[in-house]
């Protein structure tokens, strides 16, 4: 169950979320977005939905769905 949604078109490939993620669940896609950046993708098996990615991202890529 995905706990985090992403907007790949906003990603600038800065890498802050990759470094901040405590479970190392974020990596760069081989694909690029319209800005030419390898946008981030999440390994949902590892993701714990802690929202560190949302907090450190300067560009509004992430949305955390939270507890239902």
């Amino acid at each position, binding site marked *: 169950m995905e706990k985090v949604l992403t907007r790949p078109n906003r990603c600038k490939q800065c890498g802050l979320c990759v470094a901040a993620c405590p479970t190392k669940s974020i990596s760069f896609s081989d694909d690029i977005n319209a800005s030419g950046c390898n946008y981030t993708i999440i390994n949902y098996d590892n993701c714990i939905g802690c929202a560190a990615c949302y907090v450190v991202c300067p560009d*509004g890529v992430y949305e955390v769905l939270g507890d239902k």
Partner: protein
Amino acid sequence: MAKARKFPESIDRAANGFCPGCGHGVAIRLIAECLEELEQDKNLIYGIGVGCSSLLGGILETDRRHCSHGRAGAVCTGVKRVNPDNLVIAYQGDGDAYSIGLAETTAAAYRNENITVFIINNTNYGMTGGQMSHTTMPGQVTTTSPHGRNCDITGYPMKFPEIVASQFNAAYVARGAINTVPQINKTRTYIKNALEAQMNKEGYSVVEILSTCPTNWGMSPVDAKKRLTDELIPYYPLGELKAREVK
């Protein structure tokens, strides 16, 4: 598991124009989150500085004035005096606020104007390509201190919040940073306090936010955060330098 986090709608009309990994993006989001929580996002007038801070204008849908370089302190004074019930926020960088704008920034604090000022401090003039600013560190290489800043002849980095907290009659003074998740969360509470101080008509509030400039520091965004942690924070203490008075 965390609570739901969604990017604030009030700044979502377009992607921002900042460099990858720039601290401005985080600072702006924190401010917008607080404004939406305080239900002030539709009661708001921004005075925006010149420099990278002017990129804020590209994503806002609010009343705003792009001020002449350094003059946001004066423009916001004029706005707040005639529109006292609107939230008036100055959003500037260290160059805009502390170099060319030092007089206006200081005077607004000195007069205890009921405005909130956010100063994003990344120790250089970013937009113009990385020149030395009033907050550049000793020995820091910039395009106008090519051998490293010599503080004997250029002055030591300025600590504006300390001046306000110790010398002026202001309502709330804090310094935050965007280097780690806990620090970003703390900075968010400083921002909220500053805005509430204005809403309660307590007087002048300022939050300096230590930030990164990967492009002009010549570092990756991750390494830039390391510089912030290791070099800037020891010099620029974090925390509430003047807390709000408990009434």
